[in-house]
């Protein structure tokens, strides 16, 4: 039943959730949900620029996402409120991106493909980019796992023990930009943040340690990708949004179960 493009789609989705699960946990723990969304919005500007300069979309998106993430980090240290700053940067870069795309009359692009992703059109090269990006992010996250976790628990403790929390959060920013760049093809700009946050949030009530939360989130991500592909095949729905829908349904279902279990214990 699975044609070749379905296998490629599944592999692309699995590649993204493998990196997104542990990274998404940090996004949740550090209350950076809006930060991830803002980085993704900025990616539209990256798409426009890379098409205008006829360079690889992956590189353009990576560059703009990084620029956005780093400038937000730097500006927030100067006393701007983080959420205001993100609101300004995210939406203005999205707007500039959409305006810039409209100037590209000689290039016919399907903007929808970047906003919502086109996982069924993933080619062999895309697959290579997605997996190398994901493995890079996974490696970065695992390498800095302990210091990142310490800096998440307390920046002061990290300082006292000779770590630089600023540098650790830069690692996280870099990883976030890479995930956004590789995930554009899979779920699109508007839904990347969902893939980061929803599985991690679903895993929380079932986890006693940070590691278990990341593992469970990865498992839920895999189920969402495969379930979403299956659903979109059978229901003839757009694939990226269907993947996110499955993740959301899992969240609602499992959190309700967890709530009932806890309620049953305390009564």
């Amino acid at each position: 039943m699975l044609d070749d493009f379905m296998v490629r789609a599944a592999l692309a989705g699995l590649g993204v959730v493998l990196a997104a699960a542990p990274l998404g946990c940090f996004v949740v723990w550090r209350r950076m949900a809006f930060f991830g969304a803002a980085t993704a919005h900025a990616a539209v500007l990256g798409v426009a620029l890379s098409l205008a300069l006829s360079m690889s979309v992956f590189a353009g998106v990576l560059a703009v996402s990084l620029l956005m993430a780093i400038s937000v980090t730097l500006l927030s240290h100067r006393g701007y409120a983080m959420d205001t700053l993100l609101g300004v940067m995210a939406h203005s870069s999205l707007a500039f991106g959409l305006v810039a795309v409209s100037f590209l009359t000689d290039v016919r692009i399907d903007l929808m493909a970047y906003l919502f992703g086109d996982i069924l059109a993933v080619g062999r090269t895309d697959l290579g980019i997605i997996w190398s990006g994901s493995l890079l992010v996974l490696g970065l996250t695992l390498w800095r796992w302990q210091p990142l976790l310490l800096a998440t628990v307390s920046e002061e403790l990290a300082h006292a023990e000779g770590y630089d929390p600023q540098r650790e959060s830069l690692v996280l920013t870099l990883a976030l930009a890479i995930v956004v760049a590789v995930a554009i093809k899979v779920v699109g700009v508007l839904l990347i943040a969902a893939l980061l946050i929803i599985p991690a949030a679903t895993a929380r009530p079932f986890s006693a340690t940070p590691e278990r939360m990341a593992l469970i989130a990865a498992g839920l991500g895999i189920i969402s990708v495969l379930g979403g592909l299956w659903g979109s095949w059978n229901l003839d729905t757009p694939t990226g949004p269907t993947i996110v829908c499955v993740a959301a349904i899992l969240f609602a279902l499992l959190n309700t179960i967890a709530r009932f279990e806890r309620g049953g214990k305390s009564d």
Partner: protein
Amino acid sequence: MALSDPIMANPQHPLIDATGVNVRIGGRQILENIELSLSAGEIVTVVGPNGSGKSTLLRALIGAMPVSSGRISRAPGMRVGYVPQRLHIDPTLPLSVGRFLNLPRRHSRRTIAQALARAGIPGRAGAAMSALSGGQFQRALMARALLDEPDLLMLDEASQGLDQTGTADFYRQLEEIRDQLGCGILMVSHDLHVVMRAADRVICLNHHICCQGHPEAVTAAPEYRALFGTDDEEALAIFRHDPHKHPHDHERERERDHAG
């Protein structure tokens, strides 16, 4: 083990040394011209009223607070055990006590169990940090700070959340820790009553260092009295064990003896 440590073997060199440190936050001068140094085996207490810059001083010393001018030098390779005043763990982060103690270096199950037992919360490795009471939480922080046998232990209002006996035990433990590890201890407190007894040296801080020295000398200093007033007479009396000057305390003590 601690004695063979190069840092310990050289008590002439201070563990941490601050010269002319100024910290300004948003145009406000929080710390002014701080001169401070601390050597191995010393217990130094920083006292001062609320908002006098005590916590900022500790944060500057560990490098979490950038200094506007001045210099802070730390002994190379020095291990710092830091017990912050408050630690908020986000409810989205599942963290057991054992996992917390394994940050950022992992230790064997046995080492963790021993550390928790020593801190007075045995068998709590599997408990979630969020499930601990204030006092237990403070003990877990302490257990973690001691795990790597620090050269310098820094405590910011560390007796918070402990009851009276807990507080007394806590400060008695500090001297034991100092004797066992040979480490320097720098703590911040506004709990004058107990702190004075444990300290070798007291630094009285109100944005600048008003006075410092042996506890008894400091409490007699006019700068100290200007800051804390004389309503600490009772505390000082306990410290000095001077029953003639404060017969009330003595009477109360006697009553307690009779009752017991």
